[in-house]
């Protein structure tokens, strides 16, 4: 199945701002992070400290993805 991924800020140094991933059903958020970490190993230090949101709410690493869902990978905040 397909899931959509959007990344922000420093993560755009490692990935396209938006991309899709074809994955097996039943995968969790943590599995997705592992998959994209392999694509860009230098992103791992940021990904380890990032949170993930779906529909503007944070979800846990155990959240199981559904077809066509869009996940937003939120690196550590640095506002102010």
């Amino acid at each position, binding site marked *: 199945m397909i899931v959509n991924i959007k990344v922000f800020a*420093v993560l755009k140094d490692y990935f396209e701002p938006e991309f899709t991933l074809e994955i097996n059903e039943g995968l969790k958020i943590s599995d997705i992070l592992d998959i994209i970490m392999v694509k860009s190993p230098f992103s791992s230090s940021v990904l380890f400290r990032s*949170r993930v949101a779906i529909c*503007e709410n944070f979800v846990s690493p155990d959240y199981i993805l559904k077809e066509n869902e869009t996940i937003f990978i939120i690196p550590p*905040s*640095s*506002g*102010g």
Partner: protein
Amino acid sequence: MKPSSSYPPPVVDNMELVTEHPINLCSMVAKAHHPKAGAIVLFSGEVRNHSHKRPVSHLFYECYKPMAEKMITKIVAEAKVKFNLHEALCVHRVGKVQIEETAVVVITASSHRNEAYEANRYIIDRVKHEAPIWKKEFFEDGTHEWGHNCSCHAH
């Protein structure tokens, strides 16, 4: 506050919580007056011309706007209850922000000053650490770097 780089200077009148326009502190304070308030505290987070001993030319803020606005709303609402505030406002700039401009403002109004001071600190600390807003520093030497002032969400 220096004159805005854009003209006419937009005013945060409609109270956007995240704005690309320069923040007008005076117009924001004007919204915070309240008959029960004996104290108003204003914090303005400003762009300084140096970072880690390097000269800074300007900052750029990126945000995930719908979520940032939702989180700022929630943080401000929680602070109003927690500190018994009569009014609380918070606005964050995004896009390019020049030296001496306001990047974020928090205004708190309460019956007595203690609550206004404490609540103000509470709001800015949470907004900085929790809201999906990211700072990119642009240095005088032409280099740039994403900010990394929070590592609270390691997992």
